[in-house]
């Protein structure tokens, strides 16, 4: 008896040892082929079109769905960023724009298949784009900016040819088909889950995917984590082969300091939403790769409501513009991590170019500020509140303290208001805040786009509530201006109006600080300010 049991034990041990030896390297290999991405927010829907979708959901959808076209990338100051002017085919093998600019014809890839194996056809494209412009989804208002408003504009020519008709030439039509919303959905699969009340299968697609994208959902726990695995058949990437990582884990870690610890210890591979102070110290340690790209399609403002006294007086707004402690704010709140939009010198007081945003010729000059206050008839100053949202506290809180301190010197008494995010957006929407800090972002950054969306109309994104007929007219006209020189001229005019009216004060373009394992390569700053997981590989 005894020898047998000894033998069994020996055998078991040997098997165990073998197993261990075998699983060791295997596990290490899977880890190298796995990307672990941690973020403070979370994915809340698998369809980016659902109202309320988070930015993380947008990022995920780029990997799970394909679009007709996608943006190329370019180098900006030595860093890879998306390129609005280089549109390449994704599901489209090629595309032509007619000479009059009114028709865009797409020829679809013949080898493209949805994740369930069925081929991608022009019918699917038609259904998907119809959905984006007719269903109650987020895509509707976005595609509008590219003159894509009705299902009549989309036509199936043959199973692999698809045509888009425009009412007039619009340079944003094509780029709009590359943004997050116009995903191409497996229409047969989606229709099977549509109901009479929900003909576009919104409910089903929120929790399921029916795409042809580079990654397949493996598990989805809203608010916690999403795990995706590689779609081996996918070949729409820039290198015409499947994506690099076999598996991607997208995890929510609410505490920013913990995210910094995770990436520093090598447990996470990539994180983009760290606090500026953590990035600074990680960069100093030089153990990790830090790629900092100024968010060149985003701007942080100090905004004033131009309709609420005393900010309805342009001289008050100018006084504030010359009383903000720009350098201190940039250094203390942002740790200098961004591109400043202050302290420029404009030759003869004229804007140097027609781009947006451009650095403003403002700096702290308290005497000048006092003069403006006097001109406004408020030499003694006034009292107001300065608001920011809790979600931005790590930068906005020190900023607010500095604003308060500096404005006190010219007699403006500031009371700081820290609002939970939902309250802040509500009050901005209702135009109740006189003085606050907020940011904007444009997926398709062009001068007219910025001015049309952020300086016109009684809507939420017009933070300053400016209502300037001249600015409105120039911006609307510039939208369809095909001539580059004329467009630039319009931009110059707009920038000049902006400076003289000073509706709000652009501060800076904060950095997107991507902190990653040194082995990661291919990181590109994307229009939606998230990571496109398909860009990444490990060396």
């Amino acid at each position, binding site marked *: 008896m005894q020898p047998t049991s000894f033998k069994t034990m020996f055998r078991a041990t040997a098997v165990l040892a073998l197993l261990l030896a075998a699983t060791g390297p295997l596990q290490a290999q899977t880890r190298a082929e796995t990307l672990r991405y941690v973020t403070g927010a979370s994915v*809340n829907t698998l369809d980016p079109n659902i109202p309320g979708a988070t930015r993380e959901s947008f990022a995920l959808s780029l990997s799970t769905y394909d679009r007709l076209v996608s943006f190329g990338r370019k180098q900006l100051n030595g860093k890879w960023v998306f390129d609005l002017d280089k549109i390449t085919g994704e599901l489209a093998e090629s595309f032509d724009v007619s000479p009059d600019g009114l028709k865009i014809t797409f020829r679809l890839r013949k080898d493209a298949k949805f994740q369930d194996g069925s081929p991608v056809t022009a019918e699917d494209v038609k259904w998907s784009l119809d959905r984006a412009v007719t269903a109650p989804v987020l895509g509707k208002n976005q595609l509008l900016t590219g003159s894509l408003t009705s299902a009549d504009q989309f036509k199936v020519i043959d199973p692999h040819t698809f045509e888009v008709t425009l009412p007039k030439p619009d340079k944003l039509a094509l780029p709009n088909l590359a943004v997050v919303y116009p995903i191409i959905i497996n229409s047969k699969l989606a229709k099977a889950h549509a109901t009479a009340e929900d003909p576009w299968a919104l409910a089903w697609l929120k929790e399921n995917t029916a795409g042809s994208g580079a990654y397949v959902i493996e598990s989805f726990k809203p608010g*916690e984590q999403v795990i995706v695995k590689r779609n081996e058949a996918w070949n729409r990437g820039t290198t015409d082969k499947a994506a690099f990582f076999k598996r991607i884990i997208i*995890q929510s870690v*609410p505490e920013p*300091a913990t995210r910094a610890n995770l990436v*520093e210890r090598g447990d996470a591979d990539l994180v983009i939403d760290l606090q500026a102070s953590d990035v600074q110290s990680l960069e100093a340690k030089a153990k990790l790769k830090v790629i900092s790209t100024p968010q060149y399609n985003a701007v942080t403002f100090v905004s004033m409501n131009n309709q609420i006294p005393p900010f309805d007086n342009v001289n008050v707004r100018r006084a504030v513009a010359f009383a903000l402690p720009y350098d201190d704010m940039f250094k203390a709140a942002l740790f200098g991590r961004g591109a400043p939009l202050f302290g420029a010198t404009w030759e003869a007081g004229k804007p140097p170019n027609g781009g947006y945003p451009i650095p403003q010729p403002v700096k702290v000059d308290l005497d000048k500020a006092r003069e403006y206050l006097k001109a406004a008839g408020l030499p003694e100053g006034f009292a107001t509140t300065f608001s920011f949202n809790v979600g931005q506290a790590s930068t906005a809180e020190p900023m607010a303290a500095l604003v308060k301190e500096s404005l006190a010197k010219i007699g403006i008494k500031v009371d700081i208001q820290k609002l939970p995010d939902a*309250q802040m957006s*509500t*009050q901005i929407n209702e135009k109740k805040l006189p003085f606050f800090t907020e940011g904007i972002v444009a*997926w398709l950054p062009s001068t007219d786009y910025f001015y049309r969306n952020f300086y016109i109309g009684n809507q939420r994104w017009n933070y300053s509530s400016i209502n300037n007929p001249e600015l409105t007219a120039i911006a609307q006209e510039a939208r369809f201006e095909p001539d580059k020189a004329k467009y630039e001229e319009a931009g110059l005019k707009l920038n000049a109006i902006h400076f003289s009216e000073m509706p709000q004060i652009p501060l800076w373009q904060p950095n997107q600080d991507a902190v990653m394992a040194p082995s990661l390569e291919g990181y590109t700053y994307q229009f939606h300010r998230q990571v496109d997981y398909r860009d990444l590989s490990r060396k």
Partner: protein
Amino acid sequence: MNQQQVIGRTVRGTLGATMARAGRRFLSSLPALFGVLVFTFLLMRVLPGDPAVFFASGPNASKEDVELIRKQMGLDKSMPEQLALYLYDVGRGNLGRSMMTGQSVTKDLRERLPASLELTFTALLIALVSAIPLGVLAALKPGSIIDHGVRLFCALGVCVPTFVSGLLLIYVFYYLLGLAPDPTGRVDVFTSLPPSRTGFLMIDFLLAGDIEGWWAALKQLILPAMSMALFVIAPLARITRASMLVSLGSDFVRTARSVGLSRRHVVVTYALRNAILPVITIAGIVFSTMLGANVLVEKVFSWPGVASYALDALLSSDYAPVQGFVLLMASLFVLVNLTVDVCYGIADPRVSIE
């Protein structure tokens, strides 16, 4: 009828009576639950944030989008109508939909509650295991240096905010020493989850026979449970000490001592057993307050529990999850109190629940 039967019947009788009393007590707590329901509903509507505006925050969200979300959330109706609809839905077991996660609140809570319960149970266990010996030690020599030491230790535990102790524990045990696993939830992402039977990972892993997974899940539990436990050791140790003092001074302990039973035997079998009832009561209270109060610990340790869920929802004015969470907590509170009462009734038939 022999004596055995008589005793049996009495016990059964008291048990029945206890159950009947518990039932009555449960019924009488229903109005409180209803009050919680209505009060939370109103409180959430008083919040100045408009969830529709918040969630329509895409770069091109328009007024239409806001209206759309408002309609989805039922906010376009009048307040009494909304309340009536809400009560009707709750009556059918539907707690509404969370805008934040895009799921039904019932589903979210069902998935997240085990995480919170597991954490709280573990923390309570750690607290009890350390508090009872501490309390007993202090009671054995009141006024001694040990007594003061215990007192100081307990006071120290309650004077550090849980989020600070949590962050420090992470910094030391994860970042500096590398002893603890990464604080990213209930289990290491590379460990495959066991089939979900109870939702409690510690149990599910055991049922699946996956010891390695069990160990991984336990390691994740230790730090957050410790930071929670630190905070509740004090009340538990205090009550143990107090009831031990009473119990040690009582006649039966003196009798037990005088007949020459060993000191250990007297303390553990006689004194402690009699002193344990008040400790159970306090443990019940501690448990239910902990469930609601572990918001910050869950946040710090990225624990996917119900409290951090409610916190996020509150900050984004997502009504349904907060309402659901409060209702759940209130129900648990009632349930825990009932359990304590029943335990009490069984342990000591003389106690009336009323």
